[in-house]
């Protein structure tokens, strides 16, 4: 057994913070969807976990996966929270490239150039 890094009860709490829902209100959220927090909306009325998402995202953009990682929340829970925050206008997203055409040659060339520039 590896030592538990997380406090006991994390999973129970995760479930409760989504009001018991297992599914987000939208299914377009990807691990690399970029999240941008609105800076002009008050956080009043948000539950503590949504507040944490907002506080994390306010200084700058992050992907959904990074938000889950920083807040140590499962991706599934993070999606529910983010979808709600999108519904209330607290978060806007920059979609990842459409999954239907991720192998766009132009993007691949840009990735290649970016990697080569690191050598």
């Amino acid at each position: 057994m590896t030592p538990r890094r997380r406090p006991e009860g994390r999973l129970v709490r995760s479930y409760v913070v989504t009001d018991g829902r297992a599914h987000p209100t939208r299914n377009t959220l990807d691990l690399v969807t970029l999240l941008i927090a609105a800076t002009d909306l008050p956080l009043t009325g948000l539950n503590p976990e949504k507040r944490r998402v907002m506080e994390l995202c306010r200084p700058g953009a992050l992907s959904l996966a990074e938000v889950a990682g920083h807040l140590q929340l499962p991706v599934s829970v993070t999606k529910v929270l983010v979808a709600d925050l999108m519904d209330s206008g607290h978060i806007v997203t920059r979609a990842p490239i459409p999954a239907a055409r991720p192998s766009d040659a132009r993007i691949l060339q840009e990735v290649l150039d970016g990697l080569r520039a690191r050598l």
Partner: protein
Amino acid sequence: MGSAPASDDVYLRPTVKTAVKLLVVGHFAVGKTTFVGTLSEIRPLRTEEVMTQAGAVVDDLAGTRDKTTTTVAMDFGRLTLNDSLVLYLFGAPGQQRFTKLWQDMTRGALGALVLADTRRLSHSFDVMGVLEELDLPYAVAVNDFDGAPVHGLDEVREALDLLPETPLVRCDARDPESSTRALISLVEYLLSRESESELEHA
């Protein structure tokens, strides 16, 4: 816990518009976490979920965590490639293929780098099979582990039964240049496939 990270470079440049992902996969202890950590510009992150064997996320309200559940984990890191483009690397073992997290990881991914260890090449078949089922193109990088027998790449190619066009390179996952070169081989391959299919459809 729970406070926002302190460092400025945690956040993406405001000009970033596009995010793409590549997978780093392979069997147990093959170097996935090391590879992602070597290349990431941020402290690598990790997410975990507890799943039932049927693949549902466990809510655990009744404390039902038992041997029918498994913990699914994934490490990931980030490389900003230019002002508008960011690359995310997701590292995970392949035997999680039926989980939601694995589906999330593979959906929209450009391709995968399979890490392999010459001491147990046959352990790589499973994950290669998963990628083939998903029609996700991949390249293979053989990590030279200390004390491992050194095989010629031709021998490795034959042992892994790779297609002639599948790139096969050596890599030290602890070394940034070597790891970057492995990713470059993968992306060159993805680009060549793309140009070919464009020609076919022309």
